[in-house]
């Protein structure tokens, strides 16, 4: 009996100790997270003040410890990725004084996978030296997709003049998500919006980037180029993207070339295209020229379900 009670007592003590330890770990983790957030908030305010400073008096941000420097890096990344249109020279001075480039490249060197991609993403918001650019060039051919795209973004941000050459030299195809990351650099004014040479290029990545620019910035005058791509391009993915871009611009889709390209699409592709057109606000009448009678039942149901028939644009 005594042995039984001893066992129960030991089990209870073990449970109690585990609960206390778990709570302590959770508390310390929460405190660490709160501290890190407070540090980031502090540096965001400092960075914004530095960028908005109109007094022209030299002001500098100092981060003493490693964790403070990391928080400063993250703050710079948040500010730079959310804003544009400020003179970044005072910020470059802060980056140099705090040795942020060295810190980031140390972290990149000793980390792997997504963590490495995270540090690479942070490096896209600081000005890099030649040595770091060579390291990034090596990483842009990594087998890990997240690492290579993060290094490509970082390379483009650090040397915008070479952006087109770097994208055209890639030996792999960029995904739509990768292209949207490049577009976000464009929106910050880092690289120019010269879509015409991109659309005329024979390189897959450049063409896709050109189409994405047209689509994101709603460039109506590019529709002739898009029609050229639809009629002459052999790559199905580019043709599909060009048709989707035309529809997102709200252009008529009744041309023979588009109908021919659509007839070569698989059933699932046609269905997904139909869904896309319904959300873009095309009318039943406009879709009748593109889809068969059987497919039109699906299209009609979609358009009605989206309540687009009241406001849709008529293309006849």
């Amino acid at each position, binding site marked *: 009996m005594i042995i039984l009670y001893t066992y129960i007592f030991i089990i209870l003590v073990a449970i109690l100790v585990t609960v206390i330890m778990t709570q302590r770990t959770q508390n310390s983790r929460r405190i660490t997270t709160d501290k890190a*957030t407070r540090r*980031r*908030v502090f540096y*965001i*305010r400092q960075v*914004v*003040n530095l*960028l*908005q400073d109109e007094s022209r008096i030299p002001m500098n941000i100092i981060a003493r410890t490693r964790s403070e420097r990391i928080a400063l890096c993250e703050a710079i990344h*948040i*500010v730079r*990725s*959310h*804003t*544009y*249109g*400020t003179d970044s020279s005072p910020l470059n001075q802060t980056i140099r004084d705090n040795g942020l480039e060295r810190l980031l490249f140390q972290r990149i060197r000793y980390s792997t996978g997504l963590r490495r991609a995270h540090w690479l993403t942070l490096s896209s918001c600081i000005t890099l030296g030649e040595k770091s650019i060579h390291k990034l060039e090596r990483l842009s051919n990594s087998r890990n997709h997240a690492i290579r795209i993060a290094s490509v973004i970082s390379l483009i941000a650090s040397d915008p003049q070479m952006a087109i050459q770097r994208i055209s030299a890639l030996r792999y195809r960029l995904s739509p998500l990768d292209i949207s990351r490049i577009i*976000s650099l464009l*929106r*910050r004014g880092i690289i120019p919006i010269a879509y015409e040479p991109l659309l005329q290029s024979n390189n897959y990545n450049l063409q896709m980037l050109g189409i994405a620019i047209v689509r*994101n910035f*709603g460039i109506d005058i590019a529709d002739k180029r898009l029609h050229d791509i639809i009629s002459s391009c052999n790559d199905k993915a580019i043709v599909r993207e060009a048709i989707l871009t035309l529809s997102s611009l709200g252009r008529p889709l009744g041309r023979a070339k588009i109908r021919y390209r659509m007839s070569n699409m698989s059933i699932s592709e046609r269905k997904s295209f139909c869904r896309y057109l319904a959300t873009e*606000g095309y009318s039943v009448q406009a879709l009748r020229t593109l889809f068969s009678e059987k497919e039109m039942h699906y299209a009609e149901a979609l358009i009605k379900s989206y309540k687009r028939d009241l406001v849709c644009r008529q293309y006849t």
Partner: protein
Amino acid sequence: MHRRKIIIYSQHLLSAELVAAIIGYANEDIIQCSSIEQTEELCRKIDADLVIILTSSPLLGGRNIIRQLRGSGHRPEIYVISWRHSEQAVLSLLECGIDQYMTFPICMGRLKAKATLSNNNLTRES
């Protein structure tokens, strides 16, 4: 001097902090909210002068937030800043009754100028 009351709604603390830092804490009382219910309640309670919403999804979700924010007769200015660039979404939001729509990445000077302009209008009215 009248200190303006500004409410910033965002689920991301750091984005809200960034916008607050751009507008500046000098002449404003800036309060950050992490839920839309909290924003509506606070707006009614303190008679906010400006509400900045850092997402468009609650407004496009069918909930009449604008009416809730301006329900008590007080008419705060409502700015929406989001990553959504589609023309359709922007038009829908403006039709909803918001005063300004801006997209990220945002020009610091422009946001500050807009906030200052709204402050000047408020001072002139009072």
